[in-house]
């Protein structure tokens, strides 16, 4: 991509989980180990101030990416650089101060505002916790002042600090989560489905707030969602994930107007359309394969109408789509230029 140093740089990052049955079962039933490749080699650079959206269906590994970045999981392979410092994976810095500094610079907002706030803590304590962890010397008065300012910044009242989470609605709780995430003055926020548990009108409030904050504080977001419309609204660039890999990465406008990868096209055709343009859906065949036993080659090939022998054998790499498109796609058909222009979706056979 073009200018601007990457704030966050994922290089060939992968995370495998051992989901084998217990040892005794394996011996008795003569079964081997089972590995779930939740994330299988992702390269993604996020520039300062930009919002990158990550979309995909359940089980594609998008939440695992979020957890890898904030350090909740260690990568199996690859490395993560934040602001020039390697914070995870191969070549992790041994400088504890630099590591701490990087960790303070990034925070996470979780999906479920009911589960991510401790019900027995007052809001002020919840919001102050990251400050206490990163700057234990902060005085009580400074802490109170900072918490009050944060609550006002996210659209709550300073006096709300003495209340408990159950006294707030879902949208207000998500505002508390955002206030907590902002408390260490981070530059980078990882947002894992932050509005998925909210009603649409409340979702609109939270999305507007997040956009206002990104303008006001110059924040960088990685915004993870299964909802294409939400990502279209908030992101500057979008990555589409399928079974642990990014299959397409492009500027938002480009991706939605001129999707390259057959999976992206399929997803866009599947989104219910409020405009009611009379567009008929392509009844998409098939489902996401079992991630424990992914197909060889391009993992999308069993559902892809353009798959050929090469797709069944060789894993495609993410490369510039060419043909005037500014994005990148991991597709042999795109690379070979044998993908037809995006078809007007055919009517569903009724």
């Amino acid at each position, binding site marked *: 991509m073009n200018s601007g140093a990457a704030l966050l740089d994922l290089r060939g990052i992968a995370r495998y989980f051992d989901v084998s049955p217990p040892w005794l079962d394996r011996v008795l039933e003569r079964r081997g180990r089972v590995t779930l490749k939740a994330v299988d080699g992702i390269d993604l650079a996020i520039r300062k101030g930009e919002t990158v959206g990550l979309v995909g269906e359940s089980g594609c590994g998008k939440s695992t990416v979020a957890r890898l970045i904030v350090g909740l999981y260690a990568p199996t392979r690859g490395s993560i650089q934040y602001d020039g410092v390697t914070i995870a994976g191969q070549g992790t810095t041994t400088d504890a101060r630099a590591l701490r500094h990087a960790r303070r610079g990034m925070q996470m907002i979780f999906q479920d505002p009911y589960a991510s706030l401790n019900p027995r803590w007052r809001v002020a304590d919840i919001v102050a916790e990251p400050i206490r962890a990163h700057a234990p010397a902060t005085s009580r008065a400074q802490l109170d002042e900072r918490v009050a300012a944060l609550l006002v910044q996210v659209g709550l009242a300073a006096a709300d600090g003495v209340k408990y989470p159950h006294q707030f*609605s879902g*949208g207000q709780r998500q505002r508390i989560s955002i206030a907590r995430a902002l408390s260490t003055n981070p530059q980078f926020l990882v947002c894992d489905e932050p509005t998925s548990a909210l009603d649409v*009108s409340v979702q609109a409030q939270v999305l507007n707030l997040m956009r206002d904050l990104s303008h006001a504080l110059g924040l960088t977001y990685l915004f993870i969602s299964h909802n294409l*419309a939400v990502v*279209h609204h908030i992101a500057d660039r979008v990555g589409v994930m399928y079974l642990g890999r990014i299959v397409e990465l492009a500027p938002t406008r480009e991706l939605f107007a001129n999707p390259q990868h057959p999976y992206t096209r399929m997803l866009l055709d599947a989104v*219910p*359309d*409020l405009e009611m343009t009379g567009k008929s859906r392509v009844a998409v065949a098939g*489902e996401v394969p079992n991630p424990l036993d992914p197909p060889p080659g391009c993992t999308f090939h069993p559902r892809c109408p353009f798959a050929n022998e090469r797709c069944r054998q060789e894993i495609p790499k993410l490369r510039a789509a060419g043909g005037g498109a500014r994005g990148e796609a991991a597709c042999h058909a795109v690379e070979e230029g044998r993908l037809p222009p995006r078809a007007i979706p055919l009517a*569903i056979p009724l």
Partner: protein
Amino acid sequence: MTFAAAGEPLLAVERLRVEFPTRRGTLVAVHDVSFSIAPGEVLGVVGESGAGKSLTGAAIIGLIDPPGRIAGGSVRLAGRRIDNLPYDAMRLVRGREIGAVFQDPLTSLNPLYTIGRQLVETIRTHLPLGESDARKRAIALLEEVGIPAAARRIDHYPHQFSGGMRQRVVIALALAANPKLIVADEPTTALDVSIQAQIIALLKRLCRDHGTAVMLVTHDMGVIAETADRVAVMYAGRIVEIGPVADVIHRPQHPYTVGLMGSIPSIVEERERLTQIDGAMPRLTAIPPGCAFNPRCPHAFERCRRERPELIPAGATVAACWLVAQMP
């Protein structure tokens, strides 16, 4: 086709009221809800959590959990009153005349029985068929809802199916006795987009083939736009607007519907900000006097705070709003 569906309605709901007695007084979760569904029609019911949309569906199929109860109004199916039927009589209506599809296909199926056994049991409860004929019908149903190798899959257990396939099985169960109405409560919410598209297409095709009417309860306006003929918008236990789907989406009359439509992000249109309805829907314990939407309404005036508006014809839809009443 504005206020009520044309012709003899299949389902007629009149001033339905659902209450929950609590220690601190009675909560009215569904308040004077009236609508009708014509044979073969798809009525969408939208609203945010707590608006009463699912309870309205549950009241129609007679599945309100105690201590909740239907406290007033009536539900008529093809002219026959069904809201006051005894439990056993209602059991026969449910399944035979009204099918149900719920959000989570895993909890709608019994994990201990094969899907074939569940289908055959349902078919034999409602139709005079022998074991082998019922099994044939079960296989035919599974084929119809798009389950590959149905004759083999019929002997599998629910956990052996994926989420989308399970929802297909649930739809097959709902269709088992060829009901005239299906109440579908968030049928696609637990599914991924690509699977959601398949299930919507399936529901549409089945309705067309069988002439089945559907009450589609969902929070997803996109699903309604794709599927429904008419849509009812619920807020704080009441219908605030009802009308043909294109009119409600493109020319909404009630300020809540206007805000709701504006708050939905689009994959086509680019907007700097989404329309924002400040505040949240009131809790049932604290419904404001007058119009329940007035504290959040940008156009509220004196009358809205005093007096509750009834549904008033407005353009092609019907809306419960004093602004609409004032329009020439």
